[in-house]
C-alpha cells in the first residue's frame, strides 16, 4: 500500500500592517489594542488591500515556481465562529493569486496546487472560570495558504516538505515562520491506496503546528488506516485533530457534517490586478533560492553535503559564507571555521563580526601568524565585543611566534625546567613530548607556532629509543 499525503500550509506574512486595514500586524500589544472598525468587522467598514502583503505573497509564489495570475479575485468564505468578526473570512477561492508550482525535495519535485491570500481570524482565549474571550489583534493579519498536490509519500517526507517551505519563506523574507508563534500552521490530508489504483478515502488532520506533531500524527494515521484496510474495514472520511499527549487522532467532524462555506466573489474588492512590470520587479528582487544555491555550491565549492545543508539553511549564514569565501577563497576552511566556531557563537547572539574581519582571522591563521587556538580566542572576543580583530591584535600581542630564533629561548627554558619529562621522552615515553609542547605554549602565552615548537623540541631532544 502506498501513502498519499497533501498539505495545506498557512503562513503569516511579515508585513507591518494587516491585510485590509492599517492596524499593526505584530499582535504584540495588549488584547484588542491593534484594532479598528475594519478588522473588528464593524457595520459599514470596508477592506482595502495591503500592497506589501500582495507583494510578499507574489514573492512566495515565484519562489515556488507558481504561475502568478494577472487577475485574481477575493472571495468570502462564510461560517459562524466567535473568532470571525464579519461572519465571513476574506480569502480567495476559484481565482487564486497563483497556481501550479513545485518544491524540490532531495531531487524529487512535489507539486503545488495553489497559493492564495487570506486574512487571519481573531484569537480565542479560554479563561479558567470557563469563559471565552476574543482578542482581535490577530484578526486581519495577512496569511498565504499553500496547498500541495497529494504527492507526498510518507510522514517523514511531509516533515521535510514543511521544513523546505519554511526555509524558502525565511530565505526570501516573506515570513519568519515561527511555528510556536503560529506563523506557520499546517493541515494534512492522508489516504492509502493499493499500488497503482485510485486513492482511498482520506482523512484530514487539522492544526498540526509543529514538525513533530505533523510527522507523528501522520504516522499514527497511516498506521491506523493500514490496520483498518488490512482488516477489510473501511476508512471513514473524517476531519481529525491530533492529541499529542495521548498520541492519537480524534475525529471532530464526519463527511455529513462538513461545512458549506458558500464562497462567492467579495463584492467589496475589485479583482486583484498584477501587471507584468510589477511582477518582473518582484522577480528581480528575489534572492537565489536555497535549492539553486545548494546546487551551485556543490559545483563551485566541493563542500561535503552536510556542510552545504547546514550553511544554506538560513540566508544570512549562506550570504556570510560567500562573503568570507570571496575574501579568503578556501571554502572548506571557511566552512570548518563557520560550522565549529561561528555557528556556535551565533547561538549566543547576533553576529557582529563582519565577513571581512572573519576572513582576516582565517588569513592570519592560514599564514601561520596566529595559531589556531589564538585564532579561536580572537574570533570569540571580536564576536562578543564587536571590536575589530586588528584592534584586538594590536592591544594584545597575539601574533604567533613563528621565528625559530625567538622561540628557541622558550624551548631551552622548558627543557631546563623539566628534566624528568626530558628523561621520560628519551626513555621512550612519547606522551612526554606533548607535555613539553604544552609547556612551551604556556610559556609563550599560547603564541608559539605549535608546528615550529614541536620541530624545535624534537631537534633538541634527539631521537627517542623507539
Amino acid at each position, binding site marked *: 500500500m502506498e501513502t498519499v499525503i497533501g498539505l495545506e500550509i498557512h503562513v503569516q506574512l511579515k508585513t507591518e500592517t494587516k491585510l485590509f486595514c492599517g492596524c499593526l500586524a505584530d499582535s504584540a500589544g495588549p488584547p484588542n489594542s491593534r484594532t479598528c*472598525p475594519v478588522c473588528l*468587522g*464593524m*457595520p*459599514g*467598514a*470596508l*477592506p*482595502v*488591500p495591503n500592497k506589501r502583503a500582495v507583494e510578499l505573497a507574489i514573492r512566495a509564489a515565484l519562489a515556488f515556481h507558481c504561475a502568478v495570475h494577472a487577475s485574481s479575485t477575493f472571495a*468570502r468564505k*462564510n461560517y*459562524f465562529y*466567535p473568532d470571525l*468578526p*464579519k*461572519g*465571513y473570512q476574506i480569502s480567495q477561492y476559484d481565482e487564486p493569486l497563483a497556481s501550479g508550482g513545485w518544491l524540490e525535495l532531495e531531487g524529487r519535485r512535489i507539486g503545488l496546487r495553489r497559493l492564495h491570500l487570506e486574512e487571519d481570524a481573531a484569537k480565542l482565549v479560554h479563561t479558567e472560570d470557563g469563559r471565552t474571550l*476574543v482578542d482581535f489583534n490577530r484578526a486581519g493579519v495577512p496569511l498565504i495558504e499553500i496547498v500541495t498536490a497529494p504527492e507526498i509519500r510518507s510522514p517523514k517526507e511531509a516533515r521535510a516538505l514543511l521544513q523546505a517551505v519554511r526555509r524558502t519563506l525565511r530565505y526570501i523574507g516573506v515570513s519568519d515562520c515561527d511555528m510556536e508563534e503560529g506563523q506557520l500552521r499546517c493541515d494534512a490530508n492522508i489516504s492509502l491506496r493499493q499500488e497503482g489504483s485510485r486513492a482511498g478515502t482520506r482523512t484530514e488532520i487539522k492544526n498540526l503546528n509543529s514538525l513533530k506533531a505533523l510527522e507523528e500524527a501522520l504516522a499514527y494515521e497511516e498506521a491506523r488506516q493500514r490496520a483498518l484496510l488490512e482488516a477489510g474495514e473501511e476508512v471513514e472520511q473524517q476531519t481529525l485533530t491530533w492529541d499529542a499527549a495521548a498520541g492519537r487522532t480524534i475525529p471532530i467532524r464526519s463527511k455529513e457534517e462538513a461545512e*458549506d462555506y*458558500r*464562497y*462567492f466573489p467579495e*463584492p*467589496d*474588492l*475589485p479583482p486583484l490586478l498584477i501587471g507584468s512590470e510589477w511582477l518582473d520587479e518582484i522577480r528581480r528582487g528575489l534572492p537565489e533560492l536555497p535549492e539553486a544555491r545548494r546546487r551551485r555550491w556543490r559545483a563551485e565549492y566541493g563542500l561535503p553535503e552536510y556542510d552545504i545543508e547546514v550553511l544554506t539553511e538560513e540566508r544570512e549564514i549562506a550570504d556570510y559564507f560567500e562573503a568570507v569565501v570571496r575574501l579568503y577563497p578556501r571554502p572548506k576552511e571557511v566552512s570548518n571555521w563557520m560550522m565549529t566556531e561561528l555557528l556556535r557563537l551565533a547561538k549566543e547572539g547576533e553576529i557582529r563580526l563582519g565577513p571581512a574581519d572573519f576572513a582576516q582571522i582565517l588569513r592570519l591563521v592560514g599564514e601561520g601568524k596566529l595559531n589556531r587556538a589564538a585564532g579561536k580566542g580572537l574570533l570569540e572576543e571580536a564576536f562578543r565585543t564587536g571590536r575589530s580583530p586588528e584592534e584586538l591584535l594590536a592591544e594584545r600581542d597575539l601574533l604567533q611566534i613563528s621565528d625559530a630564533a625567538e622561540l628557541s629561548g622558550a624551548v631551552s627554558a622548558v627543557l631546563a625546567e623539566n628534566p624528568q619529562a626530558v628523561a621520560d621522552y628519551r626513555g621512550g615515553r612519547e606522551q612526554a613530548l606533548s607535555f613539553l609542547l604544552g609547556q612551551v605554549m604556556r610559556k609563550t602565552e599560547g603564541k608559539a607556532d605549535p608546528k615550529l615548537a614541536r620541530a624545535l623540541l624534537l631537534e633538541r631532544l634527539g631521537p627517542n629509543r623507539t
Partner: protein
Amino acid sequence: MGLNERSLHELIGLLERGEASLEEIIHDLYRAIEEKDNSIRAYLELADREELLAQARANASKPLRGLPIAIKDNISTVGFRTTCGSRFLRDFEPIYDATVVKRLKAAGATILGKTNLDEFAMGSSTENSAFFPTRNPHDLERVPGGSSGGSAAAVAAHEALAALGSDTGGSIRQPAALCGVVGLKPTYGLVSRYGLVAFASSLDQIGPLTKDVRDAALLLSIIAGRDPLDSTSIDGDNVDYTRELGEGIRGFRIGLPREYLREGLSEEALARVEEWKAIFKDLGAELREISLPHTEYAIPTYYLIASAEASANLARFDGVRYTSRASEESLEELYSASRDRGFGPEVKRRIMLGTYALAAGYYEQWYGKAQRVRRLIKEDFERAFQEVELVLTPTSPTPAFKLGERVADPLQMYLSDVYTVPASLAGLPAISVPGGEVGGLPFGLQLIAPHLQEGRLLRAAYAFERAFGPRPARPRAPGGRRSQRRARTGP
C-alpha cells in the same frame, strides 16, 4: 412660507445676504418636526436643538453655512445611534463617521437627525422598520416608499431641508417618487460606501433626497469622489454638478423602453408619461422608443444577488457582539436565538433566500446565473445608450400604496421596484423627479444616464423641473392625533 420649506441653495443665498439666520431656519425646522413628526414619524433620532444651533453657527462660513441635513439611519454617524431600523442595533453607537458624513461636515453641514428605514434597507415601504412605520406626508394612510422612507418623508414634509438616503434597488428613487421629492442614485462607486451599513455591497449607493434638482447637484458635488477607504470607489473629485445645470437638453435623444410601458401602468399614469414626453419635446429633445430586452429578469436577478450578498453582510450580527444576545446555552443556541430575535421577517426571508442561492450545488443555478443575467441587463443599457443620451421611465408603477396593503404579499412589494432595479444592476446613475400626480398622489419620473454621466442626468432633470412648473402642491398638512413628542424618538 417657512424657511424650512426652502431649498438648500435658496437658504445659502438668504444667509449670505443676511436675509435669514440659522436660528430662524432651525427654529422653523424644529417647529415643523414638532407639529408633524408625531404622525409622520420620519425620524428615529433627532439632534439636540441647542447643540445643533451651536454647531451650525460654528460652520456658518463654510459652503453649506451650517445648514442641517438628515441622514438615513444606516449611515454611520458619530454622536447618534446607527440602528439600521433593526432591533440588533437599537443601542449601537458607531465610533466613526461614514465618509459621506465627513464630507458633509467638512463642507459645513450639520446633522439634524437619523431617519427611519426598512430594517437594513430591505423593503419598499418603511414598514419593515423594527420600530415603527413612517407615513407618507401626502396621505397618512399611505406608505412613503422605502427603504429611505424616513428621508423622503422628512424632506417632503419640510421636516428636513435635504437628506441622504441609500439606494440598492430603488431605495432613494422610489420613496422620492412616492413623496414628491427629488432622489438621486449616483453611478456605483462615485460616492464612497465607507460607513454605509452594507445590504448588498455590489449595488448599494448613497445619494441625496432633496426639494429640487439643484440641491441634488449641490449635495452630490460634496459627497462624490474617490475614497481610499472604499476599494470600489472611483474618481469623480472636484466636479461641480451645479455648473452645467442650466445648459438645456436641445438635441438630446431620450429613449422610452417599450418593456417598461407594456403593462401594470394605469391610464392616468400613461397620461402622465405622455405629458412628460411633450415637455421634453418642447425642450428640444427627441423621443425614441428603445428596447431593454432583459428587463423582465431584473427583479429575480436582483433578489438573488442582493440577498446572497446580504446573507454574508448580515452574518456579523450573531449575538457575539452588538446587542441582542438571546441565549448562552451553547454557541449554536446563541447564534440561532439571537438572530431569531434580532432580525425581522423580511430580513430573515432574504437571508434564507441568499443562503440558498449560494449553497453548494445551487450556486451555478442561482447566483452564477443571476450574475450572467446581470451582465446581459448591463449590455442592454450599453446598446441603448448608443442611440440615446438618456432613458425615461416612471420611477414606480404606482403612487404610494396603503400601509399594510402589500405586507402579506412580498412579491407584490418587490414589484414596486420593477423600474428602478435595472439601473441598479447596471450600476448606472438615475434620478427621480416629481412628475405630477396619479390619483391625487405624487408620481415620479425617472431618468437614467450612462456610467458617470451625472452631469447630463442632472441637466435634463433640471430642465424638466423648470419646464414642468413649480414644485408639486405642499403636502396636505397631516391632521389628527397629536401626542407628546420625545426629544429622542426611536426604539
